[in-house]
């Protein structure tokens, strides 16, 4: 009897295994189709490796930011402040390194420490005062954006230490600037933590069932605190990449990454491991969106289309990720 049931389930799983596989790589296929379409429209300018090399490097901060977002998202908290943390950290790098002449390594350490601090402040209000994460991080976004404008006098600071610029975009591996590989390395580390450590399991259960996690002896608040600090540090790292890619600190443009990064986080949850926020899905989704925007820009479509594209992509991505979870409501607070 048990044998029969097992066989039956084996048949059933192989039946939908193909559908499952397609779901997992669907985004890659769509990405390939998108590249083919743009390639057909602009064979010279779009389909060349230089174009893609620039795309991979210039969206590395966005990729890092999207990776930052999925840590607290997996633990069940929104962190909208990642964009502002990126902006503030790159501003701090500009101010301390260019204006105050601090050595670059010390400045980078300060930037990462600010990321930790941002995570701690968010956690204080989310975990200690029990305020919804959406509200807290919306508030800290505005606070940090304001601080970034204050310390930079609302100006772009050029002339950041060449060491940083060289480390980020100075060299290339397989024709792609280093910046991309920092994001890739982060994705690998996160893949390991998410899928191959007990911590990853705890993170997942804290996000999906707080009470279940608590009754299984998991220190839920500690896990959430860790996730918020991780997103702070990772978005500080994204700020470092951004400063390196630009060679300057811009107190305004960093927030532009927020929407595509969130869209990528949710879109990434529809691929590779459908139904879960996962780092490989994020990397694919970021560069899928980047390809879409770059192509549109190269076709000469006006700038406002970027906003429409990003916003539309976010809503579509959340809808798709909801559908892949079998219409379970996403319980994130």
């Amino acid at each position, binding site marked *: 009897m048990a044998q029969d*049931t097992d066989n039956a389930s084996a048949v059933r799983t192989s039946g939908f295994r193909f559908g499952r596989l397609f779901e997992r790589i669907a985004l890659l296929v769509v990405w390939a189709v998108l590249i083919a379409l743009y390639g057909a429209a602009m064979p010279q300018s779009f389909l060349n490796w230089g174009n893609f090399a620039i795309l991979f490097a210039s969206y590395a901060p966005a990729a890092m930011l999207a990776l930052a977002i999925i840590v607290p998202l997996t633990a069940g908290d929104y962190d909208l402040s990642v964009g502002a943390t990126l902006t503030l950290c790159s501003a701090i790098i500009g101010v301390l390194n260019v204006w105050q002449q601090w050595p670059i390594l010390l400045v980078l350490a300060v930037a990462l420490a600010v990321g930790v601090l941002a995570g701690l402040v968010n956690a204080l209000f989310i975990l200690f005062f029990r305020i919804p994460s959406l509200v807290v991080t919306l508030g800290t976004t505005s606070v940090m954006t304001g601080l970034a404008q204050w310390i930079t006098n609302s100006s772009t600071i050029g002339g950041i230490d060449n060491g940083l610029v060289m480390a980020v975009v100075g060299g290339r591996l397989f024709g792609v600037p280093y910046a991309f590989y920092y994001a890739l390395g982060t994705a690998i580390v996160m893949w390991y933590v998410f899928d*191959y450590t007990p911590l990853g399991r705890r993170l997942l259960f804290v996000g999906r069932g707080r*009470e279940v996690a608590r009754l299984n002896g998991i220190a839920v608040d500690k896990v959430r605190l860790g996730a918020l600090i991780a997103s702070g540090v990772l978005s500080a790292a994204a700020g470092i990449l951004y400063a390196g890619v630009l060679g300057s600190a811009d107190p305004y443009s960093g927030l532009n990454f927020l929407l595509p990064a969130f869209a990528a986080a949710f879109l990434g949850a529809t691929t590779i491991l459908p139904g879960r926020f996962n780092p490989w899905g994020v990397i694919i989704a970021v560069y899928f969106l980047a390809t879409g925007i770059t192509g549109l820009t190269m076709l000469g479509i006006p700038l406002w289309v970027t906003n429409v594209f990003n916003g539309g992509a976010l809503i579509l991505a959340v809808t798709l990720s909801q559908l892949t979870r*079998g219409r*379970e409501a996403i319980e994130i607070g």
Partner: protein
Amino acid sequence: MSTLSTPLSDVATGPGAAMPLPVLHVTNIAKNFGGAKALAGISFEVFPGEVHGLLGKNGSGKSTLVKILAGFHAPDPGGKLEFNGQAVDLPLKAGDFRRLGMSFVHQNLGLAPSLTVLENLRFADLTTKPAPFINWRNERKAAAEALGRFGLTIDPDERVSQLSPVERALLAIVRAFEEIRAECAATGKPGLVLLDEPTPFLPREGVDKLFALMRSIAATSSSIIFISHDIEEVMAITDRITVLRDGIVAGELKTADATHEQVVELIVGRSLAKRAAAVHAEIERLEPFVRIENLAGGSLRETSFAVGRGEILGLTGLIGSGYEQAPYLIFGARPCRSGTIHLMTNLAPIPIAYMSPDRALALDFALLPGDRQNAGGVDGLPIVDNMLLPDVTRFFRGGFLRRGAMMREAHALGTRYEVRPNDPAAKLSTLSGGNAQKVLIARWMNRKPRLLLLDEPTQGVDVGTRVQIYAALKAASASGTAIVCASSDAEQLAEICDRVLVFAKGKICRELTGAELTKDGVAEACYVSLDVAGGAQVRAVAG
């Protein structure tokens, strides 16, 4: 149908007068749930101005009846419902009850704590009446009148969260009556307020205020159906009592002529054994493993008991008696007021305030919560992860989580605890309720706990699975695990427990062992214990 209209003055004389037209006349209402008979054709009448008690054990059909009246369930064809002599089309649609002059107060009261008394009271009118704007001055006046009509001194602008539990219950009942008052005034016919266990969490002194309010409502010739587990309360306030048992009307009594014993007999369904005179002294037959002393938290008051190695100890009682809190308090999953754990293997006693789930796990305790969906397992995650969640570090070797080993162990556990289909990679949500519960049982059994705490382990589980779960529990106790099982299911307790503690009003009132430990014995003890614990006070109030 004009022949049916009866002058209100005649009706208002209430029961005892020559056959007044009943407000509610239920005839042969039945309901099957996939072969299981919840109601096997019941008939009864509620007369104008009457407070009518509805009693019965869990599963006797009370809640099914309430849900049919509320339009939540469709009854099986063949039954009939009449309101004030007027037959109504079955099934009722949700919300129909209000048009018929009936309203409900459920146990959770359905109040919005963050809104004011006024807003709660006028909620239904304010949201349904098509008015261009809300005249707050008039609304406040109407609310004050409604409260004043029953002599209640509750400030309409007070937030409901600031009210005492008793005031909240009073407010909910006044609101229920207000909802049908206009309807009744328009038709000139009496209405019906159905109170579904509003009292278990109220202090004794609050209950008489509730009773006074119920009497004033009945004085307006509207009727009340009062559902409660508390026989003393029902006997103190009702005019007549209908007792349901196993989906039929076991008996109808005129309260004035009924004795407490008669009512218990009707509920339980057999003659009463000679009632034990006093609470049994604690007997320790088995080698004791853990002694709990002065445990208090939630509605549980200072309680002490011991569990032996290999013993299955049942905790039970009526709703509100607090027994179901014990497993969570011992596990450190809910805040306690006091208590210590004396483990025979530990020299120092452990204050329960110090306990937390991770510390409990470190002591080899395990807790299977009653709320499987929200506290037991995560539906959207794979069975393997749910099953091995507390053990996950064991599979972390050489820097990597050994997925293969986890799958093998989960599969072996699935085979052992007969999880069907046994596919550890599938989501927990793909399993039936019973199989999901087996996954959670397997999770805890796999840890070979020394103390296993259970809350309603077979709730919503099919009969076959129930047998498998019992077998698993028996096997665990045979290997020395001490098991504490909180349950409202008398049959289950009688079947698996070595000893059952019966709670009432937050305290242990009876200890059942040996020959007393039968399904009926447990059910009876629940009702009789309540009498022991608080009956005297109610009698004083009623008198």
